[in-house]
C-alpha cells in the first residue's frame, strides 16, 4: 500500500531534494518544525510508529548535543548567561544551536524516509538516465559485492583445514588474494556472456519499469508551485546580537502555509490511499 514510493523516481528525487535542501539552508524554526513534523509523520506511516518513536531518543540526543555545543564555540549575542574564561555564553547562541539541531534532525528524518523509499532499482534508473553505462555498472556492483563476500567466506572456511601452521593475518591475506584471482577468472566468463549478448553495440537502450504518469506530472507540478511560493515568501530569523523573529506579512504567512502543505504531502498521500483502500474493500 506504499503508494508514495510508487511515484516515478525522478518525482521522488525532486521532492526529497526540495525538502532536504530547504531544511538545511533555511534557519527558520517555523519552517523547520513543519518540515520535521512532515518527515516524522511520513516515516511513522511507512516504518511504523513504534520504530519511529524508538528512533526519537537518538535524534533527540543529537539535537541536544548540537544545541549545547554551539554556545561553547560561538560567543556572539547580547544576552550573556555566564562567562567562561572571559568569553560570554549567550542565550542567542543557544537558540541558534537549537535551530541548527532542528535543521539537522529534520534533514535526517527525510533521509530516513528517502532510504526506505529509494531502493536499488530507483538508483539504477537515475544512474541509467545519466548514462546507460553507469546504470549497468551500478547494477553489476550490486551483484558483484555479495558474490565477493560469499566467495571470501567460502575460501576462509575451506582454508580452516590448513590453519595451524600459518598466522591469522597471513591466512586472511591468502584468502583475500584467492578471492581476487577467482573473481578475475569469473570476470572473464561474465565478459564473454556480455559480449555474446551484444554488449558494446551502439545505441544502448534503457529498460525500466517506471513510467512517468499524469499522476507524477500533477504531483510534481503541485510540489513545484508550493515550493516556489515557499521560497519567494520566505523570511528568515535573525539571531545575533538579538533574536529577531521573522516579519509576518501576507506573503510570508502564505509561504509558511505552502511549505507546511509541501511537507505533509507524503503523509497525506499515504493516509488518503489507505482510506481509499479501506473504502474500496468495504464495498466488496
Amino acid at each position, binding site marked *: 500500500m506504499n503508494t508514495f514510493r510508487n511515484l516515478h523516481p525522478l518525482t521522488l528525487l525532486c521532492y526529497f531534494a526540495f525538502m532536504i535542501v530547504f531544511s538545511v539552508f533555511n534557519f527558520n524554526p517555523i519552517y523547520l518544525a513543519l518540515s520535521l513534523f512532515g518527515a516524522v509523520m511520513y516515516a511513522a506511516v511507512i516504518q511504523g510508529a513504534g520504530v519511529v518513536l524508538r528512533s526519537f531518543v537518538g535524534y533527540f540526543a543529537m539535537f541536544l548535543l548540537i544545541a549545547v555545543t554551539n554556545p561553547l564555540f560561538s560567543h556572539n549575542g547580547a544576552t550573556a548567561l555566564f562567562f567562561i574564561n572571559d568569553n560570554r555564553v549567550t542565550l542567542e547562541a543557544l537558540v541558534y544551536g537549537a535551530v541548527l539541531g532542528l535543521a539537522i534532525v529534520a534533514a535526517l528524518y527525510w533521509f530516513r524516509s528517502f532510504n526506505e523509499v529509494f531502493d536499488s532499482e530507483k538508483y539504477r534508473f537515475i544512474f541509467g538516465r545519466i548514462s546507460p553505462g553507469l546504470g549497468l555498472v551500478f547494477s553489476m556492483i550490486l551483484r558483484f559485492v555479495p558474490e565477493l563476500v560469499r566467495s571470501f567466506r567460502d575460501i576462509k572456511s575451506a582454508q580452516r583445514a590448513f590453519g595451524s601452521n600459518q598466522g591469522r593475518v597471513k591466512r586472511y591475506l591468502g584468502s583475500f588474494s*584467492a578471492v581476487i584471482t*577467482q573473481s578475475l577468472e569469473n570476470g572473464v*566468463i561474465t565478459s564473454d556472456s556480455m559480449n555474446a*549478448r*551484444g554488449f558494446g553495440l551502439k545505441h*544502448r537502450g534503457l529498460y525500466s519499469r517506471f513510467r512517468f504518469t499524469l499522476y507524477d506530472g500533477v504531483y510534481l507540478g503541485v510540489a513545484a508551485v508550493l515550493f516556489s511560493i515557499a521560497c519567494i515568501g520566505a523570511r528568515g530569523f535573525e539571531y545575533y546580537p538579538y533574536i529577531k523573529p521573522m516579519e509576518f506579512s501576507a506573503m510570508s504567512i502564505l509561504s509558511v502555509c505552502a511549505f507546511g502543505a509541501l511537507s505533509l504531502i507524503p503523509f497525506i498521500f499515504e493516509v488518503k490511499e489507505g482510506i481509499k483502500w479501506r473504502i474500496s474493500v468495504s464495498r466488496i
Partner: protein
Amino acid sequence: MEDFRIENLSFKYPKSDEYALSDIKLCVKSGEFLLVIGESGSGKTTLLRMLKNELRPHGEMSGEILFRGNNIASLDERESAKRIGFIMQDPDSQIVSDRVYSEISFGLENLGLEKEVIRARVAEFASYFGLNAEFERSTVTLSGGQKQLLNLASVMAMEPDVIVLDEPTSQLDPIAAVEFLDALKRLNDDFGVTIIIAEHHLENIYKYADRVLCMENGSVRLCDSPREVVRKLEDCKIAYTLPVSARLYRELNDKLNPPLTIKEGRELIRKFKNDYYISQKELKNENIAFSCREVWFRYEKNSADILKGFSLKVYRGEFYSVVGENGCGKSTLLKLLNGSVKQYRGRVKQESAAVAYLPQNPKNLFVKDTLEDDFKSVDNSYMELCRRFNLQNLLNRHPYDLSGGELERTALCKLLLTKPEVLLLDEPTKGLDAFKKQELGKLLRELSGEGITIVCVTHDLDFAAEFADRCGLLFDGEITSENFTNAFFTNNSFYTTSSAKLSKGVFRNAVTYGDLLECVKAVDRR
C-alpha cells in the same frame, strides 16, 4: 533450410602442436536439436565457440563456417548478437546484473530496442520460463537451476535463431538439470529454435536429440540419429556415457529397435524373468569414526531449522554417501562435521580431530600461485603423494588452470597432506564427465581401503550407487532412510539410479550398470 554449414574446419590454438579441431564437416538444419557428445578435451567447447563470432578463440583456423549461407565472420555485430545465443557452464558468472528483470532486459538494452518493446519482451519471457515469482529478486539469491533458467530466458528474450549451449547442466543438481533440459526441449518444439548442445551426462537429454554428434580428439567420429548412434558406435569411451538402456541393448545384440528411455529399456529386460540377484556387500565394522545424536541446527536465531533431530553413525574406513535434493541441508551437515558451525542442541562426537573438508568449489583450497607453493605451505613431504596422484607434471601450474578432474585430484592430494582420518566431500563429481567420475571414485575407494572414513554429500546417485558402502537420504533435516548401498537404491522407487529403475522387479539389488551386466551375463550362462 540450413542454419550452419561447416566445411573442412580445422583449428589449432596458438603455441600448440595438435589440432583442437581437425577437418570437421557438419550441417545443422533449422530447428534441429543437435547433441554434441565426447570426452572432456575432445574439442566440444572449441567447436561450439567457433559458432559464435564474439567467443571464437584465437588461433590458426582453416575451412569455412557458413551461417544461413553466408560466411559467419561477415555477420554484422548486431545480427550476430541477436541471432545466435550462447550459454555456458557456470550459472553464476554468466549473470551480469543484480535483479532478475534487469538481467532479462540486458541483451535487449544492448540491441537498443524501444523501452516499450523491451518491457513487453521481458514480461513475456519471464512468464514463459516461470520466473514471475522471481521477477524482482536479487540474482545472487537464486538457486543454480534458477540461474541457468534465467540465463536461458535472457538469451531467448533476444529471439535468436540458434542457441548454442556448452554443458549447461553440469553444475546443476539432477532435478534442476531435467527442468532445464525440458525447458530447452519445449523451446525447440514451440518455436523451432535450433539447439546445439554439448553434454556429458546423457541419461535425460539423449532422447530429445534429433541428431547426435560424437567427437573424439577434435574430429567427428560419428554423426547420426540417436538410435543409429547406439547401433553404429564402436566400443569406445563415449559409448560408456550412453543411457543405461542403450548400453544394455548394445551388450545384448538384440534385433529390436535400440531403446533410449527406461520405458523402452524395460521391454528389453522383461524377457529375463529370473530372480538372479546381486548379493549385498555388508561391511562389518564396529569402530565408530563419528556419530551425531539428535542434532538441531539453524544459522540464525530467527531462521528456520536446517537440521532437525539429525542422527548418524559412521564407521571407521567407511564410505558413506548422503544423498538428497538441493537445500535439504547437505552442505550444512558437512560444515557441522567440519566444525565450521555448531549445533544448538544434540551431540556430535568425533573420534578424531583430523578432519579434512573438500568444498564444492575445490579452487577454494588453493591460495598460492603454483601447486608446489600450495603443497609446501601444508607439508614439505608432498612428493610421495604427488607421485601417487600422478601430479608431478602439474606442480608448476597455477591451480586455476587445471581441468576439472585434475583439480579434484590435486585438491584431494592437498587435503591428504594434513593426514586426515575423516574426509568430507561436498559434491565431488560436480562438472566431471563420466570417466573422471570413475577415476575419482576408484581413488576414493582406495583411500577408504586404507582406513580413511569418507562422508560424501552428493546428488549424483549413480556415483553413490557405484562407490559408497552405505547411503542415507537426507530430507527435511534428518536422515529418513539409510541402508547399505544396494539395498538403499533397490528400496527407493523414485529416488534411485537409472539402472535400478530399469531392473526393478527383475534383478534384485542391481543398482549400477555393472550389476546389471553381471545379472544379464549370469542369466545368459545358465
